[in-house]
């Protein structure tokens, strides 16, 4: 049991390592947003993709980032999750006050960040449950928490299957091996449910889904909404937002957020398309 004087002692003596996941910074939402992206510039293979993106996300919020093809939507998800080959030339991104960009992908996962891939990767020969338990326990271990044995883990997994109305044959299959597009996306949401991240980024989770699969995936996401968990929903089309109601909608064009608003902004985009934002990214209109 931790007593008051232990805490005082630690506060006096410990040099705080802000990037050590075992010692999370006391997190005050009022002071820090959960995710704070400030003037982020990202270059891929010599080409500037994000050009000064600024965005803040608080716990419990659902933010939608919409934009035309080539705006930098997938880049945003990848750079936040830590994919190699994405060069940050300017700006910053912090997660609960920690420098996100200094962390390895697995450290970001352990810190509570999750990216649902637009194209989930097939890994033949690796059992889905085995993979998920390895990932789950790796995160727990990194956070200094106890790992779950296979029975405890299976119980947890079955609970999540129920919440998401998924069949349990999912557990014994190879990771995304031979899955249909819809099954892959459902598997992403299933992983999200099991890993319980603080922030989930959904990269075009609606792409390639028919309306039933879309509703199914959206139901899953809605079941996972909570006051502690935030979502960043990246999408081209408004239709996903009929099912996952965002608190905020941002328009991403030419590597920056050019417009932010409430859910009504999504409807406006639906009605007018992306053509009307072109004047906002015309060179004269961009303040640099």
């Amino acid at each position, binding site marked *: 049991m931790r007593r008051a004087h232990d805490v005082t002692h630690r506060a006096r003596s410990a040099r705080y390592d802000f990037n050590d996941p075992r010692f999370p910074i006391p997190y005050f939402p009022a002071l820090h947003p959960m995710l704070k992206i400030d003037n982020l510039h990202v270059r891929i293979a010599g080409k500037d993709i994000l050009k000064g993106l600024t965005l803040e996300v608080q716990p419990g919020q659902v933010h939608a980032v919409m934009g035309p093809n080539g705006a930098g939507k997938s880049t945003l998800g990848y750079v936040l999750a830590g*994919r190699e080959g994405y060069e940050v030339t300017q700006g910053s991104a912090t997660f609960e006050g920690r420098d996100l960009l200094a962390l390895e992908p697995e450290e970001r*996962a352990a810190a509570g960040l999750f990216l649902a891939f637009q194209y989930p990767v097939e890994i033949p020969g*690796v059992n889905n449950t085995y993979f998920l338990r390895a990932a789950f326990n*790796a995160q727990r271990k990194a956070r200094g928490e106890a790992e779950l044995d296979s029975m405890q883990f299976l119980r947890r997994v079955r609970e999540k299957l129920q919440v998401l109305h998924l069949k349990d044959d999912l557990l014994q299959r*190879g990771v995304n091996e031979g899955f249909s597009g819809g099954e892959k996306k459902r598997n992403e949401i299933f992983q999200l449910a099991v890993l319980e991240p603080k922030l989930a980024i959904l990269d075009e989770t609606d792409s390639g889904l028919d309306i039933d699969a879309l509703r199914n995936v959206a139901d899953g996401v809605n079941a996972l909404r909570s006051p502690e968990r935030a979502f960043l929903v990246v999408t081209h089309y408004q239709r996903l937002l009929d099912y996952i109601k965002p608190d905020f909608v941002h328009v991403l064009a030419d590597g920056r957020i050019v417009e932010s608003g409430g859910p009504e902004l999504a409807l406006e985009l639906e009605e007018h398309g992306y053509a009307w934002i072109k004047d906002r990214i015309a060179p004269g209109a961009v303040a640099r």
Partner: protein
Amino acid sequence: MSALLDALAAEFHGEGARREAFAAALASGLPTKRAERWKYTSLHALEQRTFTPSASPSVPVDATGLAGIPAPRLVFVNGRFDGALSDERGLPEGVSLRPLAASLEGDPRETAFLARRFDDTDEVFARLNAAFAHDGAVLRVADGVHGDGPLHLVFLGAPAAADVAWHARNLIELRRGASLTVVEHHFGTGGHAHFGNLLTHVHLAAGARLLHARVQHEGTGATLIARTDAVLAREAEYRRVDLELGAGLSRHELNVRLEGGGARLLANGVLLADGSRHLDTRLCVEHIARDTSCDLVWRGLAADRSRAVFHGGITIRAGADGSDARLSNKNLLLSEGAEIDAQPVLEIHADEVKAAHGATVGRLDETAMFYLRSRGLSVADARRLLIGAFCREPLRAPGDAALVTMLEARVEAALAASVPA
């Protein structure tokens, strides 16, 4: 002349066919890289070395590695039969298992298989084997007999006063309709740099079924030259899995003749090269009769400064109509300093055959690595997971659950030791 052959000549005192075979070996010398079948494997270093003959009775052995290998088993230490470590209990009725040394003293018909001639100049190791081998396992299964559990042949490399050269000859013969599972183990019980030369004959009569697994996990100093010649009669089935996990230099030639109509071969394997290991597996499958089939699934990995060589040769002879041949060879190159040579060769002289072959050499999929890491796995864990999955497909072939589990465990353990954390 080479130091290796000089030293062997000094100890040779055979007569008749043995003398003939040895003379032929001396005349041709060890194959150089100019020989097509040895293009990727240099014997130069081996040729410079000298070995002492394997002594009998054998050296004292650390037998802890045998704990997981149940009876019935025959154990050979540095190529010599070791009666104390062997355990023939539980041998089914109709299955005869004897050391070759004992068979040589009995009815000559028992050892008629030794008379096989080797006429190609680059069959030097087979010739040396014919000249020197006095030990090995002679395994015969009578008509229609079904052996239940696996039978184990264990080849242990144990440290001796000097490095040893050993030559052993095995026979596995299944008569009509018989079936059996054999597991061949090769491992070291301490640091040594022996040279082993093993030649195995597999004869499957009509309708016989053999499941044969071979786990090569010798010490990193060992040199092992192995050759398996199999002949399948009508409707015979040969399933085989080869794991190449150890040794410094390991060459395995698997020659299979599908002589009887409807004969089937399923041969799978994994080559796991790391450190400075050199692995060379050469398959030569001949479809001679109608409606024969082969299904070959091989996976290769090369890390550090190692080299993995795979040659998958399939020949469909004239008249072998209706044959079905499949070969899949995928390889993973895990470091810049490693090398993989993959060579699928398909020769078809018959009509109406089905044949498919493919070989690839690639690297670990970066997208898959990122996917796994984004879920929280470390680089080392993600690599191990992907590499383990890559090796798994060939291991499923035996169909025997207990054997598959054993093979998976052996590969896992080898990977855990070799994939850097």
